């Protein structure tokens, strides 16, 4: 098992695709920083217009913490797209290259092979999230310094600078869990369709559909919310609320773990029963 994990990690980190997604994530974060440097003050003056009517706002609104928080909004679509590209290829590329036949003729258990690939996918998710956050936080703090955070959730909330690192760590942990759950979607599609592109497209289609339905918050659609994975993925934001709604976050974390478990189980069943000549 240890060797299998090592091999999967080796394959993951020699793949150009892995570094391309890292590079895109870094570029995305730098573009956000640059955009904020050029236009950020105007945007926030506009957003805080209603507050400015009644109050003198003193202090630095536009700071590194705020930009990092804004950069995390790429978790809605951009980051899942990049992650699923690699996650799907971890599984589907073996089918596309035909190497799966060679692998399955080796004296290894299929469960171990799937487990090793799953762990490689988890490691990729962790590495991706780490690189994304560092490339958002470090340049932003160097360019803009640190300060209190203004969050536009349920009105306007001012979050103390001192509590930001803790909140960020929790939200990144939560976001990583959601990205692993989303990668599992790529994994199961890869096993059923045995094609990277089809898996990526299907995963993205599911994400778009879920996000779209999430926006239909009226009438009958509102009852769908708890069943939409994008609804649960978006809960990383709640760590930046003044009063963190722990029960809501725990509920969503439970949903995502159940999603990982169910998708993992179906993937295992499919992989176990798979004919070697498929």
């Amino acid at each position, binding site marked *: 098992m240890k060797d299998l994990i090592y091999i999967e990690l080796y394959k993951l980190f020699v793949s150009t695709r892995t570094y391309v997604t890292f590079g895109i994530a870094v570029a995305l974060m730098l573009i956000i920083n640059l955009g904020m440097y050029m236009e950020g003050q105007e945007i926030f003056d506009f957003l805080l217009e209603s507050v400015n009517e009644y*109050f003198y706002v*003193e202090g630095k609104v536009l700071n590194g913490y705020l930009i990092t928080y804004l950069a995390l909004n790429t978790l809605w679509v951009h980051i899942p797209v990049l992650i699923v590209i690699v996650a799907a290829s971890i599984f589907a590329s073996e089918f596309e290259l035909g190497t799966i036949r060679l692998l399955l003729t080796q004296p290894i258990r299929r469960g171990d092979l799937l487990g090793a690939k799953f762990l490689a996918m988890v490691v990729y998710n962790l590495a991706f999230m780490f690189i994304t956050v560092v490339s958002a936080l470090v340049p932003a703090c160097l360019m803009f310094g640190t300060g209190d955070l203004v969050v536009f959730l349920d009105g306007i909330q001012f979050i103390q600078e001192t509590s930001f690192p803790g909140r960020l760590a929790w939200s990144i942990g939560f976001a990583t869990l959601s990205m692993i759950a989303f990668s599992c979607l790529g994994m199961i599609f890869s096993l059923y369709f045995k094609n990277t592109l089809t898996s990526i497209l299907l995963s993205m289609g599911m994400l778009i559909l879920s996000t779209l339905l999430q926006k239909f918050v009226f009438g009958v659609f509102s009852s769908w919310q708890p069943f939409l994975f994008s609804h649960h993925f978006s809960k990383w934001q709640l760590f930046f609320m003044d009063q963190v709604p722990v029960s809501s976050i725990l509920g969503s974390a439970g949903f995502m773990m159940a999603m990982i478990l169910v998708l993992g189980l179906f993937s295992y069943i499919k992989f176990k029963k798979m004919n070697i000549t498929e």
Partner: protein
Amino acid sequence: MRPIHAIIVLVCFFQGFGQDLSDSYILELKEKYDNDSEVKCQIRIRIDIDGLTIPEKEVYVEFARDQKAVVRGKGLSLLPKRGTIEQFRNLLSTPMQAIFLSKKGSYRVYKLVALDPSSDWITADIVFDPEEKLIYESVVNTRKHGTFTTLNQYDGKDYPSRTEVTFEVKKFKLPLKFIGSEQTAETLSGMNDDVIGRVILEYTYL
């Protein structure tokens, strides 16, 4: 005499009468607030407005005549534009008509009417102590931002030790979509509601 002449004479008469700030109480009050040139203090600010969450803050503030208050503090802080100690100086320095309304215990109640069309406020009811020449209550109606009620407490000094400002405010708007926040049906429906804002300022003078 033509009717138009009679109207002009009447208007001039009442205008002149109205602008006459010969009421000694108001003149003394105006003189007192005019004398205050520069104030340095620490203010503990508590803000209680639906839709705006901000922790209690302590800031250092310098109030100087005809200048924007200098505020220094840790992180972000919000200082109300109305209701601070400079409010009454601005109020009394505007050309206005003062009308005595009643007595409230030993305090006197006046209605002030701004005569300058460019002034921020239209009318103000003030309750002050004629002996100490300190304003304890005020209700200021502004042109753009509704009514501000201020309650001052004094601790044997010429400046308030505690001020409570209440005002009506439109619930702070939720951001545009690019911020990426999730908007729910409940938050969308409550966006245009008026809410009561309450700010408490506790002063320590330096």
